[in-house]
């Protein structure tokens, strides 16, 4: 059964249509990457999935129930979203920011603390815990926000369905921390959490995800497995670049080299 299903979804939050006729389904534990040029509607799609933007047409069903009809707290236990940029400019401690991720849960302070230690370990933020968020670098902030979002979805027993939404999660991360991110995403998906990720790194998307959705000016122009979607003509049509496609030497997933 599909955990998330999107039927004919269209959205026009500010009058102008930003998304039209999006269709896909996502099963528990699978990872979908959304690719597309700037302004194609990738973030709008993520916000719609999270219930932050109402659709003008169509439906987004999380476990057969429209996502906007979920009770607020139950939805917050089921869906967590890492946004592109955070507006936090008050000097919270790193640990306090991550603790906010446990707000929808009533799992008790000791359990929350255990979750927080685990996600801090995974995102390599343990050494930052007593630092002020406002004094961190861009990549460090990204890791803290990632830890907060992971803390929100961490325990399988908190919700029957779990959906993690990531908007360009690797922005500002060095290679080591990109790998940590990949590990955490894989770990969550292995426990049945579905993941939708907006990415600009094609190779990362191909390595990590079972399905790829390509958005172009709000339309869904390609959808399928990475090997089906990635083609030289697709990159020429959508991204206006010439590429050579190869194979990942270890994992066998498609690899893209820009000419």
């Amino acid at each position, binding site marked *: 059964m599909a955990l998330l299903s999107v039927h004919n979804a269209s959205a026009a939050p500010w009058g102008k249509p930003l998304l039209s006729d999006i269709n896909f389904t996502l099963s528990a534990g699978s990872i979908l990457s959304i690719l597309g040029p700037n302004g194609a509607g990738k973030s709008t799609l993520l916000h719609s999935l999270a219930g932050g933007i109402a659709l003008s047409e169509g439906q987004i069903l999380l476990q057969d129930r429209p996502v906007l009809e979920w009770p607020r*707290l139950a939805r*917050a236990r089921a*869906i967590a979203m890492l*946004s592109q940029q955070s*507006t936090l400019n*008050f000097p919270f401690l790193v640990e*306090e920011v991550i603790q906010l991720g446990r*707000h929808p849960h009533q799992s008790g302070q000791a359990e929350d603390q255990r979750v927080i230690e685990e996600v801090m370990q995974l995102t390599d933020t343990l050494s930052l815990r007593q630092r002020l968020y*406002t004094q961190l670098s861009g990549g460090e902030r990204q890791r803290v926000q990632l830890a907060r979002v992971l803390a929100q979805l961490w325990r399988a027993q908190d919700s029957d369905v779990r959906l993690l939404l990531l908007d360009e999660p690797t922005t500002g991360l060095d290679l080591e921390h990109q790998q940590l991110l990949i590990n955490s995403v894989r770990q969550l998906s292995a426990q049945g959490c579905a993941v939708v990720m907006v990415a600009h790194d094609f190779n990362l998307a191909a390595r990590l995800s079972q399905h790829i959705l390509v958005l172009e000016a709000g339309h869904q122009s390609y959808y399928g497995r990475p090997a089906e979607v990635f083609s030289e003509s697709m990159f020429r049509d959508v991204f206006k670049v010439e590429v050579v496609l190869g194979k990942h030497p270890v994992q066998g997933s498609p690899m893209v080299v820009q000419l």
Partner: protein
Amino acid sequence: MNSSAKKVILLLCCLLPLSAIIAIGSGAVSLSASAIFKGMQSWWHNEPSQAGLIIMQIRLPRVLLAGLVGAILATSGAAMQGLFRNPLADPSLIGVTAGASLGASLVIVSVGMGLQGFSAITLVSAGAFVGGLLAVILVYRLASSANGTSVATMLLAGIAITALTGAIGNLLEFHADSEVLRRISLWRMGGLDGADLTRLAFAAVICLFVLGTLPLFAVQLNALLLGESEARYLGINVERSKALLVVIVAIGVGASVALAGSIAFVGLVVPHIMRMITGPDHRSLLPASALAGALLLIVADMLARVVIAPTELPVGIVTALIGVPFFISLLRQRSHYGMQ
């Protein structure tokens, strides 16, 4: 709540009664702590004494009113800064106080001389509340976008509202007869010298309301600092929290304007200092601000009474003298606060 925040709150709880005793003791007639105690004792036993009269009729109501108004203003300021996600949001800077002043003036002019006592204060406060509420809503609408609030727009909107309400206020005064004019200008100068039981009771009710309701939104305010959509994805009912917060703050600021005129900068300076000490977590920031706001206004009012005694300065002048240098230093270090 972390341990340093607890210590700060405990310290403020000790300093507050101390400052109240010093403030009761100082003035045209200085009273020692034991004299204060004796005076209160004799008043309690209905024995006439000069000290008892001074304390119970003049100083104690005034000190209590200063504390209540200070607590209301500082807590409202802290909540407003959280709501705007901006440490510069102060009721007096963004036109809320000016809007409340105009609302109160309108009530004074239209009701005229008819009302006295509790009903007069309630009516004037209602006018101030409506004026303040309209101003908050206008500023919030103008300054908010998906990416948070813009400081520049917020301050410019505040200037516009202050100018507009000033012009309308002048127009009112131009047409008012001399008795109403006197009442408006007396009221506008504000100050805490009019403290009596009626005002005190009203201030206590509003203070209990503001201090009782705003801390219920502490977690919501914390989450809102992440951004509105982030707060929504954490399961916060953002629209409802915002609307209720705006109304509570408008009630608090409106009432304090009606009680004591416009007292600038308490709502800006106090939450700021407290945030530096306890951190931005509203669960400790709101109570700490309430205590420190009460402390600051009690001390400022005491200074206003004694600096050039027997003449009294309006307390707003003292808070502005403390607040403006602080505000300028904030502007100079604005990059620390992530402001553009």
